[in-house]
Every structure is written in C-alpha cells, then in structure tokens.
C-alpha cells in the first residue's frame, strides 16, 4: 500500500515511460490512460497513489466515515467510467481528481445535511476553527506539514477564507456571510492567499 505517498505535481519523475504499477515513474496520467482502456491493475495503482488524498479531503468535508467511504467509492467509479474523457491538456490528473472529489463531497453535505446547515455553520465558526482542527491531524506528515507551514504563512484572514471554502465546503458567498464580510473582500482574500501559497510551494501552471 503506497497511498501515503505524496503526489506533488509536476513530479520530477513524471517524464519517464512505461513500467509496472509498482514503479512510481509511471505518471498518474499514464495510469488513467491505461484505465480508459479497461486496465484494472492500472486503476488499482492510481487508487493506491491517490486514495489517501481523496479520502482524507472527502472525510474532512463530509465528516461521517461511512458516508465518506461511499462518496469516495462513487468518485473513483466516476473517474474509471469517464477515464477516456479526461483532457490532459486542461489539467493534471490529481487536481482534476480532487476537483471532482470536492464537488461530490460538497454535493453530499448539501443534500444530506441541508436542514442542519445553519447550526453546523454556527458550530464550525464559533467552536471549531477549521484550520486548527485540521492542523492537529497532520503533525506527523512531512508533506502535510510543508503545506501547512505555507498555509500558516498566510494572513489569518486569507487562511480562514481558504479553509472555510476548501475544508468547510462553503461557497465564497457563504464564506462572506459566515465572516460578515463583503463578497468582494472574500474573493480577494481567497485569490491573494492562493497566489501566495502557489508561489511559496513553487507550483507552476
């Protein structure tokens, strides 16, 4: 099981060619392309290399373990089914996978918990700072720590807006309401914060 591996992209190893699933020089893009042709072993390898990231994020948004597993399973089935329609010119696999996953997770909390959203919002805002609780779960992870450090380097205002949007699964309008800020301010905080993170992490387009 290698799912704890980081999939920082672009990987310096990403260029190499064919190999077995155990060989991490195979890119996620290769694995997805092979999955599109029905290669279940390639998909298993894709799962192993991404599942901790996907499941962890889904679990953070959805919270309930059983539902998180269900949503994660749906996500991977959708990725499998639509593998041939993935457009590598638009996005790398991992950001795409996480985007699909985030959307599914948010769909789930919205449809399942619509009636308790208000209370939940209140609770999250006043009793549990999303970032603080997130931080507790990652002490031991090098990559997590690295990203966390970068998130820490943001202004508190930027960090709060980004955490509520991503880990809380709120829209930017909801974030604005939660923080009693104008929408424009939230847009700016999210964007400026992400730019700062991008530059600090050395992420390239």
């Amino acid at each position, binding site marked *: 099981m290698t*799912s*704890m591996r980081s999939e920082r*992209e672009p990987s310096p190893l990403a260029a190499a060619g064919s190999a077995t699933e155990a060989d991490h020089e195979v890119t996620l893009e290769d694995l997805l392309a092979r999955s599109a042709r*029905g290669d279940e072993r390639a998909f*298993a390898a894709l799962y192993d290399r991404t*599942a*901790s*990231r996907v*499941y*962890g*994020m889904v679990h*953070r948004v959805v919270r309930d*373990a059983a539902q998180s*597993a269900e949503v*994660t*399973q749906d996500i991977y*089935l959708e990725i*499998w*089914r*639509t593998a041939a*329609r993935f*457009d590598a010119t638009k*996005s790398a696999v991992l*950001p795409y996978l*996480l*985007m699909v996953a985030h*959307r599914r997770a*948010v769909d789930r909390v*919205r*449809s399942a918990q619509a009636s308790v959203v208000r209370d939940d919002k209140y609770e999250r805002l006043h009793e549990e700072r999303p970032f603080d609780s*997130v931080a507790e*779960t*990652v002490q031991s*992870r090098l*990559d*997590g720590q690295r*990203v966390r450090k*970068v*998130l820490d380097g943001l202004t508190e205002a930027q960090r709060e807006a*980004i955490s509520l*949007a*991503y880990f809380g699964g*709120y*829209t*930017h*309008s909801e*974030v604005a309401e939660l923080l009693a800020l104008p929408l424009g301010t*939230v*847009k*700016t905080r*999210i*964007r400026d*914060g*992400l730019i700062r*993170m*991008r530059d600090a*992490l050395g*992420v*390239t*387009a």
Partner: protein
Amino acid sequence: MSHDLNLLAGAYALDALSPEEREQFQAHLAECPECTDEVRGMQRTAAELSQITAVEPPPQLREDVLRGISQVRPLPPVVDNVIALRRAKLSRSVWQGLAAACLVLAVAAGGWGYTQHRNASRASSANPVAAAVSSLANQPNADLVVSSTALSHGSGTVIWAKQEHKVVLIGRDMPALPAGKTYQLWMLPETGKAVSAGVFQPDAAGNVAYQTDGDLSGYVKMGVSVEPAGGSAQPTPSTVQLLNI
C-alpha cells in the same frame, strides 16, 4: 490583467462557486488564456491543500472500488460531437455557434447529438423535437446551456434554452425498459421535491430526443428515473440517475 471575473479564479479553483457562477466563469475561461493559466496554477495549489488532510482510507474501500470497476465498462472517448466542441478552447460564442450548427446538422441528418451516429432515414420535419431544437439553434441569440453526463448505461445531454424555457434531453445507448415502465425526467432543486419534466422512451437503437417546456433556473440537477407507465408524482429513489445542467 485585472477584471472582475478574474477575481473568481481563486474561488473557482477551490470549488467555492455556486453552479451558476461556475458556469459563468467556465464560459469566461474559454475566452481568457490568462485566466486559464492562472486557474491551472491555482488548481494545483488547491490540490496541495489535500496533503494536510491526507489519511489512510479504510482497507475495505479499496476492495469495494476495485469490485465496482470490474463491473463497469469505461465509456468510449468523445470523438466528434457537441462535447468535443465544448472542450475545445473556443470562445463561448464560437462554440455556441458551432454547437448550434452541429445540432442543425445532426437534426438535418436525423441523427441525434452524435454525428457519427447519423441516420439519414429520419427527416427533421417528421420529428417535432428535431424541429424545435433546430429552430432554437437557428436563433442567433439563443442562450443554450449544454451539459453531458455519463449514465450507468449510455449518456444523457441536457440542452437548456434559457430564454425560451425549453429543455431538450438527448440520450444515447439507453436501455429499453420492460413493458409497463417508462423513463421520467425530473428537475431537481437543491432542497425540496423533484419536479417532473415528463416521461419519455428511447427508440429501438437506444437514442432519446425528448423536448419539453421548462425553466431550470433555481434547479441544480436533472434526474432520470424509471417509473410505472404514465410516470410518478415523485421519482423512485433507487432508479434515479443525475444529469448535470
């Protein structure tokens, strides 16, 4: 580069836009290479956030996923149709024009949605749905929202003419139903009850071309369910498949 929509790049990358805003921003992306680059970098950055929450999933999940995929055939690639046009980096107006032209061609050829499945034996005049889509597509200002979704069998494309309050469902490879059963189309709000958009049946080849009056404003998805002939007041939950809009 600094314009209003550009400010949405961050929220888009974090998946923090409402469906309407997302659609608007995606349309803008097609016209704005700078935004496209910026979004790509931000999506990678957003993906990094998941390092923080990474956690080992339950072992059972891997088994479930792998058992699940062994029972599902991956969809074929999209070769030549409205989706391909939409994916191309064309301006919204251009792709809309092309999509409209493509529809007209498809309609004229009698083959729905997928031009590689042309079937010249049906004339558009014989098909009221074809005629309706054709007339929508011919209006230069028609504001069409096109969205395709893979179903467990086949696929469904929803075309929504916003101004005209028309909804067209183009289905492909949809299984025939047993006697006494029908497909029913639904408009699904974020919360609350589904609203029926009528019943339909695929033709012998599994193609669907179904048109109805409807305004999808305020709805987040459409759904297809299997119901007793004549349709139901609310969808049978176990049969519902969601369609993006």
